[in-house]
């Protein structure tokens, strides 16, 4: 993987109040690749995506996207850059007062002046790709969780972005849809020449389409490599995560102020969070 890096992070630190989420993350995402980011729940994967999209700013470190340093970009340039990005949100984030069709059409309507017939074609094409052309007239409230995710997917890719973030695209989908969406992500990536960053817990499915993977734990990248190298990795952390073992160096618990036994039996000082 010697090609150009589309996204580059150097020693990125990010904290939410006293809680350090990312503690010196560095990664290089090559143009045209599908890169997966795996890690424990609450480990900062969504945060990492938001940093790369410039919706959050790191406390330290550098983030470069398409050769531009996000920290030095002004508002207008950042927005111009975002028009070439797409994001599938973990909880769909569909506009509740728009129909499925209008949700997918929204970015097109906002950024281009298209003929209604052209717009219709573009939108229905994307909806067809996620298998929901028939649902174009429904409102988001009338969709199941998985259907909503697929509409959000269609919306994320309707502008034909160069960089697409997928935040857990597979959760809540049946096995058939998972397969279809995975293939779709791969096909889309190759057809558009886009770069995809995929956050997922579904190790099998992710590894079947990803070119490269990172494992995030304790705010740091603890392992990286192609799916094969990661599988063969002898790092204890990586093995624990990929094997789904509860015991090991990756902690399952969010850090607590006291230990579990005291928490169950003890009395808290007034006002202290549990």
């Amino acid at each position: 993987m010697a090609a150009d890096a589309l996204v580059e992070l150097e020693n990125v630190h990010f904290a939410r109040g006293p809680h350090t989420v990312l503690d010196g993350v560095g990664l290089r995402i090559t143009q045209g690749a599908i890169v997966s980011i795996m890690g424990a729940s609450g480990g900062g994967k969504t945060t990492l995506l938001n940093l790369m999209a410039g919706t959050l700013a790191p406390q330290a470190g550098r983030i470069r996207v398409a050769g531009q340093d996000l920290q030095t970009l002004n508002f207008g340039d950042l927005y111009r850059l975002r028009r070439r990005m797409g994001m599938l949100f973990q909880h769909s984030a569909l506009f509740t007062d728009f129909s499925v069709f209008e949700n997918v059409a929204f970015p097109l309507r906002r950024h281009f002046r298209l003929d209604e017939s052209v717009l219709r074609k573009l939108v229905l094409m994307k909806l067809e790709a996620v298998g929901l052309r028939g649902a174009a007239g429904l409102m988001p409230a009338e969709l199941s969780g998985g259907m909503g995710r697929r509409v959000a997917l269609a919306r994320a890719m309707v502008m034909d972005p160069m960089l697409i973030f997928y935040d857990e695209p597979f959760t809540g989908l049946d096995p058939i849809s998972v397969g279809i969406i995975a293939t779709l992500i791969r096909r889309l990536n190759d057809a558009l020449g886009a770069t995809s960053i995929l956050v997922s817990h579904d190790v099998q499915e992710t590894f079947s389409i990803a070119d490269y993977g990172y494992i995030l734990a304790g705010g740091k990248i603890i392992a990286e490599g192609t799916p094969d190298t990661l599988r063969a990795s002898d790092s204890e952390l990586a093995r624990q995560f990929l094997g789904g073992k509860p015991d090991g160096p990756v902690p399952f618990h969010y850090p607590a102020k006291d230990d579990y036994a005291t928490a169950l039996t003890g009395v808290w000082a007034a006002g202290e969070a549990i």
Partner: protein
Amino acid sequence: MAFMEFIPNLGRRTLRTVPNLGTASRFLLLSLFAVANRHFSIQQLLKQVYGFGVRSLLLMMVAAFFTGMVLGFQGYYALVRFGATSALGTLVALSLLRELGPVLTALLFAGRAGSALTAEISSMKATEQLSAMEMMAVNPLAWVVAPRLWAGIFVVPILCVIFDLVGIFGGYLISVPVLGVDGGTFWAQMQSNVAFSGDILTGLFKALCFGLVVTWIAAWQGYAAQPTAEGVGNATTISVVTASLAVLGLDFILTAFLFT
């Protein structure tokens, strides 16, 4: 003990409020000027004007009608002692145009449209719709907030005019047919004693300020809410309470310093 905690608490509150006021003001300015943004749309603005109007019109008219009728009774009760019931029309009209019209319109608007606005924006935030918009390179201040803010500024004075008219009509119904004040005197007195710029424009100017303040508070509370179901509920309550108090406080300031 309680007093010892009072001072640091006051300090802490002030330290929290001042920067909040700063961010809220920045939010207001950015949103007002977002009319220049390419994602600001007149259609959205008209849709909001229509939405606000439809939501509050009937409520406004009923409230105005009762307020006017009560003013008729109350004014008669006071004036009859001085044998001055011929001034009843003037009293009803001035009370409505200068004070009750703008203030009650704004309070009702805060309760009806303002709370709905806070709930709408905060649930858009809680369900990441605002973040999604940002990701699609559409500034939520231009697409969501600005049309609502400007709609509030336009709609409240319009609603206030309707409130005044309905209220005066209610006052007339009580004064003339019920209490037996002479109809000709009622209108003639009102006409000769109400000044266009001094009274009518004063009231409309107040309504404009209230519209801005109520929509600003409602939009800001929604925008700054905790992105959870509980946060949406809290923000809605706080929005109505703060907006109502702000209207009353601002009314005092406007009345005391500008229009005496």
